[in-house]
């Protein structure tokens, strides 16, 4: 029998409403030790509100959220000893140099290996001597990533971490996250970039209008068993094969998902005048768009 995994983040009936802005409603979520959890949703869906409630920037209106089994409100400062946070917008003290900011960040944690700061700065090609005010958005983001990683946190919370990073740095970031994951760090990744979530995360939560509409195991998103099929025809056709779902016509294109026997489908198609056919694996993006009705 597999040992039960420790719960790192646990939201129970968590709600946060403020003013006219949409918050989050009755969220129930568990993130387990050592997993990389993706959190996706469009702008205004409640991703940041959830993260800000986790970090006690906001107080819950109802329900509770626990991190490492401790209450995110009452034990917030103890919890944060083991959290690294990369915000979507980076705002640091402009008058500081990068190294001052990193030393300041390190001073909040015990026994930080200062050699690790050098290691991370080299890894992310960050000049420690520059003033924060002189940095581009991408470089500020790198500072944000380094300060979140320097104390080897047990939980990393990243809100749109690749915004502003060039592709090389994005790759370096995910390599670093994978290394951290191997060492036991749990990663909570909020992102708009569905392919990056699909590539790197173990599970993914989809949030819509403040409600979590689905939590998926990425490895079980049916890449192989379900295909997305697009057929171009001269006139409308009615396919009679088992395994067709979500079908609709757009112009002269018939779109559908297919989970049946591919030979049966090809046999059926041979009865019609087909101009073109494309078959794609199903992606997280397809699931996501389905929830958002596009």
């Amino acid at each position, binding site marked *: 029998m597999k040992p039960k995994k420790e719960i790192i983040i646990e939201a129970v009936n968590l709600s946060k409403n*403020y003013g006219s802005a949409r918050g989050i409603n009755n969220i129930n979520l568990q993130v387990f030790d050592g997993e990389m959890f993706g959190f996706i949703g469009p702008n205004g869906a409640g991703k*940041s509100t959830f993260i*800000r409630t986790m*970090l*006690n*920037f*906001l*107080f819950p209106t109802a329900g509770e959220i626990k991190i490492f089994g401790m209450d995110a409100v009452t034990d*917030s*400062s*103890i*919890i*944060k*000893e083991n*959290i690294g*946070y990369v*915000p979507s*917008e980076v*705002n*640091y*003290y402009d*008058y500081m140099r990068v190294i001052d900011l990193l030393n*300041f*960040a390190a*001073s*909040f*944690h015990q026994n930080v290996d200062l050699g690790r700061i050098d290691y991370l700065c080299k890894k992310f090609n960050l000049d420690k001597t520059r003033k924060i005010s002189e940095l581009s958005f991408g470089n500020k983001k790198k500072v944000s990533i380094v300060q979140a990683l320097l104390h080897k946190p047990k939980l990393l919370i990243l809100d749109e971490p690749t915004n502003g990073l060039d592709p090389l740095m994005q790759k370096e970031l995910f390599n670093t996250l994978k290394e951290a994951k191997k060492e036991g760090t749990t990663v909570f990744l909020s992102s708009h970039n569905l392919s990056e979530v699909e590539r790197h995360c173990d599970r993914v939560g989809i949030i819509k209008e403040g409600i979590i509409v689905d939590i998926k195991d990425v490895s079980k998103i049916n890449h192989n068993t379900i295909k997305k099929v697009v057929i171009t025809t001269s006139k409308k056709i009615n396919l009679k094969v088992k395994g067709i779902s979500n079908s609709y016509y757009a112009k002269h294109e018939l779109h559908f998902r297919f989970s049946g026997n591919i030979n049966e489908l090809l046999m059926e198609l041979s009865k019609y005048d087909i101009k073109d056919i494309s078959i794609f694996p199903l992606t997280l993006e397809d699931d996501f768009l389905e929830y958002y009705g596009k």
Partner: protein
Amino acid sequence: MNLFKVEIKKNIKGGIIWGIVLSGILSLYMAFFPTMREAGFSELMDGKLDMLPEGLLDSLGLTEMPDFSIFMEYYTYVFQFIIIGIAIYAMILGTKALSKEEGDKTIEFLYAKSVTRSQIIISKMISSILLLCIVILMVMTTSLVADLIHTSGKNTLMILIVNCMMLIPILVYWSIGFAISSFLKDDNKSIVIAISLFFGTYLIGMVANTIADLEMLKYLSPINYNSAAEIFKFFDNRIGAELNISALILSAFIFASGIVTTFIKYNEKNLLS
């Protein structure tokens, strides 16, 4: 300690500039003391000022005509304007303390670290008190140097007493500033709020001194509770001189309320993006 150091580093330059400017103004005024000491000038002033309405003299802090030939009477008259400067600085320090981090959004960095909101408040309070002390020490040193030059240091103790006693209204404005800061979402209007509130209440205090029926309104202006001249006369054992004890109690109450309000409000505040 880390937060405290960062706060000091961030604000020390501003504090020293305030100290230099206020000390400079004080030095300039005190440089006129030898002229004021000349009996002829004093008599001339007395004669001219006696012609002014009593209410106007009250509002100018000339309730009982100071004898400008006496160092401490001249000094306390000048000092009341220096105290206005320090009180405004105290109020600005308070109103910006918490709101500036929210306006700059640097507070998100702190909130993500293992530090409680109360620890953030305490660090900011201690560092701003230290900055105020630096400004007051600079002004006090200037005062002592002026005393040394003009009276060979005969009034050292009295200068120390007056300076220490005037810390009371300064701390009252400082704590009001902190309480306001805990309600603000950013620091855009913090200086305007601090200055308007200070001068608003100061003007009410002046009006209260001028019109007997409105005397109670002076309690809205902490800087008018016990003036530097009144403090000097009380500690100089002048006949009839007394301290307004109820005002001192009220000062302690406002100070404590400001601190308590800051902690309560800030600890329950949502940090909106």
